């Protein structure tokens, strides 16, 4: 099985006034072709830095300290800016969280969709035709008319459909979805998830789906990666991870989701404590301060990646002992 995306030991730091903030540390993620891989994690886990690194759109004060990112085997961290440009939008595209702000407010939908086809040597009319066809595919009624509309004239759900249409327009190999349903109401969230599934089936692309919402990941993804404080702590097929988490953080996270509990409980579970300071991350396991399984080795040694079952690993000294 070939991987559409391979992230290997990626580390990214930000220069801040208080020192280097190590936002990503040795993160590895595989996205096999044609699969939907979810990245789950809470705020501060490094999701947005990961997306920035994947798209080579990190802010000025960020550096890739090490590691590599391969898109269909090609090392994009070392690709020329020209090549990067060619990759972005063409072989890899993205749907952002808030459709309200991720579409340009002063340009019509049509103009924005034509613009991303700027590499194609076809007429504007042809570009518009393609755009309209794609808008139709994502379920927008009257797509030709929508080409002349501006983002603010559409509802939130429509806008996110437009964003997906833009991402799918060039039939990329990899589609990155950055919390695309978070800003939407529940009934719309379902619509968008269904739409993403459809698009994935039609184009056959791989999707890297980033979310903090376990339910959505469970619903949509084939595989998942759990991130905590800038590290990937566990990776594996969704069903297995949910059923038998191999990292205490994953286990806790799943446990915390009240949607899991079908009976009323007096005390909802939570993970006490807070994120470590990433400008000066503690030695050993990053999660150990909040982990009730932590032993003395956790404070001393960084946990290795323990393969739990084939295609499934966990970065925990006590991976085998974790109970859901």
């Amino acid at each position, binding site marked *: 099985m070939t991987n559409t995306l391979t992230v290997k030991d990626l580390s990214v730091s*930000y220069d*801040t*006034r208080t020192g280097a903030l190590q936002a990503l540390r040795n993160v590895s993620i595989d996205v096999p072709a044609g699969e939907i891989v979810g990245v789950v994690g809470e705020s501060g886990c490094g999701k947005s830095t990961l997306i920035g690194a994947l798209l080579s759109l990190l*802010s000025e*004060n960020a550096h890739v300290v090490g590691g590599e990112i391969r898109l269909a085997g090609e090392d994009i961290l070392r690709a020329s800016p020209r090549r990067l440009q060619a990759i972005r939008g063409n072989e890899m595209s993205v749907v952002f969280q808030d459709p309200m702000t991720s579409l340009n407010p002063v340009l019509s939908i049509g103009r924005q969709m034509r613009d991303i086809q700027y590499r194609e040597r076809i007429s504007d009319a042809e570009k518009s035709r393609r755009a309209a066809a794609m808008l139709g595919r994502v379920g927008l009624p009257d797509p030709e008319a929508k080409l002349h509309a501006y983002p603010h004239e559409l509802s939130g759900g429509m806008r996110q459909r437009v964003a997906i249409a833009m991402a799918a327009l060039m039939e990329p190999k990899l589609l990155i979805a950055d919390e695309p349903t978070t800003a939407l109401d529940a009934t719309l969230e379902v619509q968008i998830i269904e739409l993403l599934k459809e698009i994935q089936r039609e184009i056959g692309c791989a999707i890297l789906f980033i979310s903090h919402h376990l339910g959505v990941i469970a619903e949509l993804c084939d595989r998942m990666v759990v991130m905590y404080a800038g590290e990937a702590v566990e990776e594996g097929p969704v069903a297995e991870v949910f059923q038998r988490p191999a990292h205490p953080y994953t286990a806790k996270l799943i446990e915390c989701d009240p949607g899991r509990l079908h009976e009323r409980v007096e005390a909802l579970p939570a993970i006490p404590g807070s994120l470590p300071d990433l400008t000066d991350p503690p030695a050993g396991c990053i999660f150990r301060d909040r982990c009730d399984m932590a032993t003395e080795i956790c404070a001393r040694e960084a946990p290795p990646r323990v393969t739990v079952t084939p295609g499934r690993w966990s970065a925990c000294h006590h991976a085998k002992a974790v109970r859901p």
Partner: protein
Amino acid sequence: MSRFRHTLIGRLARDPLAVMAIVIIAALVVMAVFADLIAPYDYTAMHMTDRFAAPSAEFWLGTDNLGRDTFSRLLQGGRIALTVGLTAVIISGLIGLVLGMIAGFGPRWLDNALLFFFDTLRAYPTIILALALAALMPRGLTTVIVVVVITSFAEYGRVVRTQTLSLKHSEFILAERAMGASFGRIVFHHILPNVLGPFFILAAMNLPVVITIEAGMSFLGVGVPPGTPSWGSTLKDGFDHIRQTPWLILAGGLPLILVTLGFTFLGEALRDQLDPKLRSGR
């Protein structure tokens, strides 16, 4: 120390632009305050044999049409500029603050009326309004200040109004109301401290504008009485005698440019520090 780093001044101290601004402003203030000590000559003393002198060891910035030492006059002019600037900015700022908050909080009709009033005042080209108003009053600093106040408070009013309106509907104000906070408490404890940030930025940026208006009025002969060593009257003398000495205009323009540089950069640095959107180095 680490607490200092997080205070506004601490943050400003690490912004090179802000440091430059503060150095310029501090230098100007020191020169204005100690003008009498620094000045090599009495600013009214006429050296009739040295009229229109070019800069030299004797007269650092040359002399004017009556042989008065330009440098000494500019120092004295700094006092006038700062007096006019600060007084006018404070008065117009206060008027603008009060009217702007009234507009922001008042009923819709009052808001509209005040907005209309602000827009009407802003419709007059400043210097032309200054010409008409200056003719109404005896020439002098007071007149200049009154004119400047009339021409500039509307700007504050508008900014404060906008700010107040957006704060009025913000969640924390709703929260205060929901707790039963009185109108006065909301205004003075919660709106005012938040309006003051943009207000001070505007004031810092506005100060050189005010000083330039004084210069413009003096240039047209409706500013301070002749003989008053304001920067504007130095410029006016420079213009009247441009063919005799080009130095006067340069010397008169220089402090104006420095003041503007200083306060504009200070304003921008303040904005950078006060606006969280720009502060995060994302």
